């Protein structure tokens, strides 16, 4: 195991542990803070995979914006504490389904990619920009209009109607 893979394993273990705590914690606000750790570890994984721009976008958008949005919505709604308030009665079934998904995916991965290795080649931000604005202009425009529509829709939904 190379040092690269060791660093990867450390990030993955920390990220998976806090993801597990996120879905089992009894306090919603703690859940949001565990989400921060998981998202930051995923950002670190992007850095180890030499995808620098995606890593910083992950930190800025997810940790910076989405978690703050989640915390604000927890503030505006009731943030109950306790297992009965947060979990429904299907925990056993849910655990079985999740274990089945994990077992199936790991079996497929080990069968198809167990011998594949790769050396991450750093991709500069300029290359990603050139790729987006030369070859993916139409999807980029569609996604920006989608984001605009979604945000206007969110404002229209959440604002209080003045009498």
């Amino acid at each position: 195991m190379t040092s690269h893979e060791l660093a990867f394993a450390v990030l993955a273990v920390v990220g998976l542990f806090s993801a597990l705590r996120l879905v089992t914690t009894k306090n919603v606000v703690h859940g949001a803070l565990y989400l921060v750790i998981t998202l930051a570890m995923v950002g670190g994984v992007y850095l180890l995979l030499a995808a620098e721009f995606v890593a910083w976008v992950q930190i800025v958008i997810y940790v910076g914006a989405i978690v703050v949005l989640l915390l604000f919505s927890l503030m505006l709604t009731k943030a109950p504490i306790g297992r009965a308030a947060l979990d429904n009665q299907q925990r056993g079934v849910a655990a079985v389904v999740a274990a089945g998904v994990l077992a199936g995916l790991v079996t497929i991965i080990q069968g198809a990619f167990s011998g594949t290795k790769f050396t991450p080649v750093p991709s500069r931000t300029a290359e990603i920009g050139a790729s987006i604005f030369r070859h993916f202009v139409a999807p980029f425009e569609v996604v920006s209009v989608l984001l605009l529509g979604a945000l206007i829709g969110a404002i229209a939904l959440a604002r209080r109607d003045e009498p």
Partner: protein
Amino acid sequence: MIHLWLPLTFSAALFAIGVYGVLARRNAVMVLMSIELMLNAVNVNLVAFSQTLKNVLLTGQVFALFVITVAAAEIGIGLAIVILIYRNRETVNVDEINLLKW
């Protein structure tokens, strides 16, 4: 050098944890957080395959950026709906919301 199964297994475990969260949680905000976990798992896969296949256009990374954008749109709309439902029903538990059931 890094084995491809490492990032793939990480993303598979993250996805399975997200599935558990979506199925077992009843608070709508926690369900949305679990959906974020699943979207992140997909992004890890996209970036790992982008580095493996050595695509000149970096399609995997560009697509991961698009997925992040769509996730931001989804969380904005989702939280607006959650706040609206809380204002009308005084609850955000997904098993108590039956407005579309008959």
